[in-house]
């Protein structure tokens, strides 16, 4: 048999008799499983998820569910096809033994695999003080149980809701509160809401939008402490500027933490920014060498992107989960030269205060911004982000139909600023600094260090923090 024929036979055999385990039963896990079957994989397929529920859709949890339009348990993801998979729901994966090719579960079971897809995603960062976090009425928002709890709390007509954090989740929840005519205070440590994702220029527009809708917005302050009553229900928050806010519901919208702890000791390149992998979803080991049997997709994946100078991007976006999982699934059951890259142009959307916000590209990669279409005053506009004379991202407020145009420009590395539109020009079309916060200071204790002097022994080593 020729080598090519042998390899083809190998692929056929794996598709028929292989054993694939997917850890993570949300959007990326489900779409990855469906894509594997679509690719003709008929072998054994196991899906492990720590939540007890079948895969559900998260975007409605901060919108329609909170408004009471849709019950939290009516958010199951539609199924594209029959899966014929073994579901292990309600049990978390707690370890990975790559030598033995086994996933360890919380109940002690070891699940063997030939190929593994890691799609464990992220979880909500909890309020850091455990005693305060345990107060009744202190809620975070990531899961459908969180959403049900917050929806009930809002339906009980609280006197005031305090939202800590002005990112997308915090801003969307503040918007829902105003829709429900519930008083809401939002605190943001930065100078404006959405500043991390979209920069200070857009953040200032978002801030004004919040104030116009009656949000008590406090920027440049943080929450020092939460206080409860005798019954253990949260009643007020002390802020860093010395003021207090009386509130009986507190949403801690503090961003997310990637679920990588279970990979400790696995030798994979897993850290606070996710699991490093190549653009085909193949995981790197801690030395930066690509593995053949472990793949990553969704929020927890971190991969180099050609359009962004090969920087490693972690994209917590819906379409990244879907398309990343499809690419990983394809590569799991194929061999070179049939590998496919996941070259998605990142994009996301948000609905808040009656405005549809959409973005394409990587706004924080840019350092300048120019308004290109529409009117800032009417909060109906498009703006482009640039870096070194090329367009790298765009954002739209109620102008989503134009994103495709900007996406095309970004893909072509077109000049920045882009040519002016033929009509509906903004009053000012001069690029200005986009005002992104300075990158965070490097962590004091590195997660990965190099060891060994002999080139043959030189390896990277993971050192857990605090050691």
């Amino acid at each position, binding site marked *: 048999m020729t080598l090519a024929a042998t390899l083809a036979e190998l692929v056929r055999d794996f598709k028929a008799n292989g054993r694939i385990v997917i850890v993570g039963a949300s959007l990326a896990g489900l779409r990855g499983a469906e894509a594997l079957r679509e690719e003709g994989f008929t072998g054994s397929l196991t899906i492990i998820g720590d939540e007890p529920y079948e895969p559900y859709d998260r975007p409605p949890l901060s919108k329609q569910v909170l408004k009471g339009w849709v019950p939290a348990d009516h958010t199951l993801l539609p199924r594209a096809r029959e899966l014929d998979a073994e579901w292990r729901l309600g049990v978390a994966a707690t370890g990975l033994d790559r030598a033995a090719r086994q996933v360890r579960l919380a109940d002690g079971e070891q699940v063997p695999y030939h190929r593994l897809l890691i799609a464990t995603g992220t979880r909500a960062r909890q309020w850091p003080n455990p005693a305060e976090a345990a107060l009744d009425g202190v809620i975070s928002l990531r899961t459908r149980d969180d959403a049900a709890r917050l929806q009930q709390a809002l339906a009980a007509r609280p006197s005031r809701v305090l939202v800590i954090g002005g990112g997308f989740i915090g801003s969307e929840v503040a918007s829902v509160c105003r829709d429900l005519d519930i008083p809401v205070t939002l605190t943001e440590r930065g100078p404006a809401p959405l500043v991390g994702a979209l920069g200070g220029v857009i953040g200032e527009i978002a801030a004004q939008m919040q104030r116009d809708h009656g949000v008590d917005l406090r920027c440049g302050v943080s929450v020092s402490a939460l206080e409860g009553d005798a019954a253990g229900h949260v009643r007020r928050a002390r802020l860093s500027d010395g003021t207090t806010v009386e509130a009986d519901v507190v949403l801690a919208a503090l961003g997310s933490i990637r679920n990588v702890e279970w990979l400790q000791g696995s030798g994979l390149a897993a850290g606070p920014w996710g699991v490093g992998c190549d653009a085909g979803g193949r995981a790197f080991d801690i030395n930066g060498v690509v593995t053949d049997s472990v793949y990553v997709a969704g929020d927890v994946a971190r991969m180099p992107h050609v359009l962004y100078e090969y920087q490693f991007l972690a994209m917590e976006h819906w379409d990244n989960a879907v398309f990343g999982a499809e690419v990983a699934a394809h590569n799991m059951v194929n061999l070179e030269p049939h590998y496919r890259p996941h070259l998605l142009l990142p994009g996301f959307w948000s609905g808040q205060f009656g405005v549809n916000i959409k973005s394409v590209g990587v706004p924080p990669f840019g350092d300048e911004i120019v308004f*290109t*279409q*529409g*009117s800032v005053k*009417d909060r*109906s506009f498009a703006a482009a982000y640039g870096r070194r004379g090329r367009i790298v991202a765009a954002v739209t407020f*109620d102008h989503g*139909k*134009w994103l*495709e*145009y900007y996406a*095309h420009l970004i893909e072509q590395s077109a000049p920045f600023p882009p*040519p*002016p*539109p*033929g*009509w*509906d020009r903004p009053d000012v079309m001069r690029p200005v600094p986009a005002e992104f916060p300075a990158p965070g200071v490097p962590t004091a204790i590195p997660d990965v260090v190099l060891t060994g002097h002999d080139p043959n022994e030189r390896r990277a080593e993971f050192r857990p923090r605090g050691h």
Partner: protein
Amino acid sequence: MPEETPWQQALRYANRADPYPFYAELRKTPVARQPDGTYVVSTYREIVALLHDPRVSSDVRRLPARAPAPAEPGAEPITEAVIELEPNIITCDPPEHDRDRRMMTRHFYGPTDAPHQISDLEPDIRRIVAGLLDGMRGKTRIDVVDEFAYPLPVKLICKILGVPLEDEPRFHTWIETALDALDLGPEAASEEMRSRVAGARGSVKELEQFMAGLLRQYAEQPGPGMISAMVHNGGPGGRMSEGVLASNAVLLLFAGHETTVNLIAHSVLTLLRHPEALEKLRRRPDLIVPAVEELLRFESSVQFWHTRSAVEDIEIAGTTIPAGAPIFLVYGSGNRDPERFTDPDRLDLERPDNEHLGFSQGIHFCFGAPLARLEVQVAVGEFVRRVENPRLVVDPPPYRHNQIFRGPRHVLVDIDGIRD
């Protein structure tokens, strides 16, 4: 006389039934300058790029006056007559377009005011379709256009807008007269077209007056339907002026049925030309949703659009479209572009990744698409299920004159009966 370009040939009435060979020729030059200075875009990628390019205007007022046809100084194309109306959402740009379309959307399928408007129509649609098919019992020969494709959309659009159905014979004649007079091809200068244009001008005027009268009537006495709602409640952005409202109401009345008539007629025609696809749909009725998308791709109801122009010089596909030049985007050709659709001349009811241009794309994406989809899914699905042994009598059938809103005048079909 210089040889005609593929585009000019595609526009000739003799080629109405099958413009596709000329489109294939046309696609060899994706952006092709015509002798009159119009740039005709025929490939999928370039059409999509221009649909999303904010340097392209759809505003008729920006169009240069079309060069008069040689030796026919009196022949003014009907487009000019239509321009006398205020611009509607399909012939204007943001921000007017965005404001007006948003106002109309709230009364059509907008999330705050009318989220169930379209889906709530399904029982009505089913009832009308059932009635039309029941009416064919005992017949051995039917005209799919007059007896099936036309009555359904016209009844629905009258109900949605609040236009009295008893006025249908009048506005039907006006619309047909206007449609028959529009010609953008080499035959525009003919004696016949000139006389049609003269007649059409009067029809457009009458249609406009009819709609203005209806608006005044609803202004005094609110009634059912979208027109009355728009007269009384524009939403946060205010109300449209009377002229703009009348123009958009005419657009909805016209576009709300003409395109759907052609789609239903073409769908039946196409399925009867492809017996294996017809049989597949009969066996698997759930395929009707992707089937209608494929039929939209295969025979697009709007073959091209003619009011766009370049506001700035636009470089595309190795050509520079100069500022001011009219741009025709040929959806019917983009939908058969082999660079985008594998084996594009094959009808595949399960075609994957079928992002066709049957409803266009971008901000002018078909306003009525959700309604059209539902109507055609029900109509074609029920036709396939209930009509016994349908056979085409004449193929190709006679076509209407209009090049943009391309569709058969009649589709005669012999049948063995109507199932329950």
